[in-house]
């Protein structure tokens, strides 16, 4: 069963890449060249690998956020807004609080998670108290979050003069790996002799990735081995039976939304503390939450599988960015590719049919994917 699901995902990814190639071909580009550029763009230099990881980190977390809510039968379209709230609050704490290193980022991250959890909790509360569909509320909350964040960034004590962004966080709040050392004399001297490490560390590599992996394990543990996970899954699979068995559905809906929110908030916080160091004024959604939905779907709503799924997604996006600068192919081909992957993942029946057809044609008796 599990292996089949994995195969379906792999086949879907293959189809996505093929159809992306066909789109490029129709548009007059050489798809093989294009994919070569992308591969080189991801693996060609330690620097690129770092960037891919950095790009993927928030997607692991927003992906898990969506996946976790899905497990409880909730559709969290609101990862986007929770991400915004998480990054805003982490920036505020990172800039205004004066705390020692290590403590500072921890406080900033926790504050970001908490704020985003409360934000998502609104949707949970409205669902359990008034029965309002969480899809609507989270969509509304996304836009509210965006404008609210902009409003706070416009605050004159917070806004960086002449820039469409907030002040930068203090150095003590940074979660960059060897961030200080990199720019110190000793570090510079060392890195001069070791180009691999120099390249690897050149981008703002940070602890976010490690945090994301640890959190994925934690989430898996919660789902598999705790009574909380048992309750949440029971509600997700069959809320009527859960209610009958004495499980408090309303509470679980709120808890589930809050955990999902905390995960998206964590994504926002690590992004600020590790990469952007500021909150920008947004004209439109950045898409971390929506991309997280795709990641979750590619990962089959499994928190651990969100890691490779996000790496794939981040790799495609980062590598795809190189297409435009080299051969002038619009990088949107990546969104099309991702869409096609998700599209095929939605249709296991089609893939089953195709594989069983192949089997029949060859006339061999091979187990088709079930």
């Amino acid at each position, binding site marked *: 069963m599990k292996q089949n699901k994995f195969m379906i995902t792999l086949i879907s990814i293959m189809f996505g890449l093929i159809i992306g190639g066909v*789109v490029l071909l129709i*548009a007059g580009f050489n798809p093989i060249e294009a994919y070569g550029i992308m591969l080189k763009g991801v693996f060609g230099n330690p620097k690129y690998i770092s960037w891919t990881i950095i790009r993927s980190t928030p997607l692991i977390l927003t992906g898990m956020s969506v996946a976790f809510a899905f497990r409880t039968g909730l559709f969290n379209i609101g990862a986007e807004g929770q991400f915004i709230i998480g990054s805003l609050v982490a920036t505020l704490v990172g800039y205004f609080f004066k705390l020692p290193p290590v403590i500072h980022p921890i406080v900033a991250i926790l504050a970001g998670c908490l704020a985003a959890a409360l934000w998502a909790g609104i949707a949970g509360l409205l669902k359990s108290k008034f029965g309002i569909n969480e899809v609507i509320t989270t969509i509304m909350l996304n836009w509210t979050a965006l404008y609210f964040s902009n409003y706070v960034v416009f605050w004159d004590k917070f806004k960086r003069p002449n820039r469409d962004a907030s002040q930068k966080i203090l150095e003590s709040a940074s979660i960059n790996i060897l961030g200080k050392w990199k720019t110190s004399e000793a570090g510079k001297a060392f890195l001069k002799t070791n180009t691999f490490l120099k390249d690897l560390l050149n981008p703002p590599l940070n602890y976010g990735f490690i945090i994301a992996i640890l959190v994925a394990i934690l989430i898996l543990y919660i789902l598999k081995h705790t009574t909380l996970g048992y309750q949440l899954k029971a509600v997700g699979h069959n809320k009527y039976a859960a209610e009958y068995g004495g499980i408090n559905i309303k509470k679980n809906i709120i808890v589930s939304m809050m955990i999902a929110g905390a995960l998206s908030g964590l994504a926002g916080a690590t992004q600020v503390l590790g990469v952007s160091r500021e909150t920008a004024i947004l004209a439109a959604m950045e898409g971390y939450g929506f991309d997280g939905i795709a990641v979750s779907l590619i990962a089959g709503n499994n928190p651990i599988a969100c890691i490779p799924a996000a790496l794939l997604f981040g790799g495609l996006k980062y590598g795809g960015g190189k297409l435009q600068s080299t051969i002038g192919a619009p990088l949107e081909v990546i969104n099309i590719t991702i869409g*096609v992957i998700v599209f095929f993942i939605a249709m296991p029946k089609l893939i089953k049919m195709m594989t069983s057809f192949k089997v029949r044609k060859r006339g061999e008796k091979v187990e088709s994917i079930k």
Partner: protein
Amino acid sequence: MKVLNDIGVIIGITLMYAAPLIYTSLGGVISENSGVVNIGLEGMMTIGAFAGAAVGYFTKNPWLGFLAAGLAGGMLALLHAIACVTFTADHVVSGIAINFIGPGLALFLCKMFFDGAAMTLPLDLDNKIPRPFNGVFPSNSFLNLVFNQYATVYIAFILVLIVWFLLYKTRLGLRIRSVGEHPRAADTLGINVYRVKYIAVILSGIFAGFGGAAMSLAVVSNYRITLISGQGFIALAAMIFGKWKPQGAMWGCLLFGAAQGLTVYLGGAGLGISSQILAMVPYLITLLVLMVFVGESNGPAANGLQYENDKN
């Protein structure tokens, strides 16, 4: 007179903002009444906005653009139908895929046809969707503010009536609703459930495409990356708000449009309220209205369920 004119301004903006949402929302109503959840409205609307603006620009005929938008939305919807109806895909997952493919394709094509630009070249003002009552009322009068709208606004309201008639008074409508409520019952009566669903989903794409074009050919005069961002979802929300009925969805869109109108008006009134705070208002009002007046609402009984006739 100032007050009356102010109200005119607000109503005018309301109608302008509501129209694209109404098209898209009606699309949602048709699709979901047939039992296919259409979260891909956003993607269909976006491809429509691009196709409308591009065809409108090249042919210099907004109506050709408008039709092309419907066609583009309908083609994307066909994909959704193939996935959900024929291959029993999870409707939400397929819809999410559509929301990647639609905007991705729109921007991809835009860059191909417009030398790498992330927006289409604007239409000449003469080539936009016409305003049938332009010059009929004295300029700056209340009536002019309210009624001097693009033709797409009027068409939107006419379509509300047509969709209502279609759903509740015609054979196709009865069948659409029956497959959304109880597909097995329809199947046992010899109705081709799959075909009815295909028709409904494709219609929904056409409507969403129109909605996109109502933005790119009337409200503004080109397509750009941020043009649609989120309106398909708002239309979806309006549909749920309207309890899956065409007239209800219309009211939902008008409510949202009115909140926008009020926001624009207050922003221009120089009251010193932060524009960012104002921008939040429509979303907060929608939330509040949902909380106070709507609460739990359930769509068609078999909405979102995969249907397979178990012939074999």
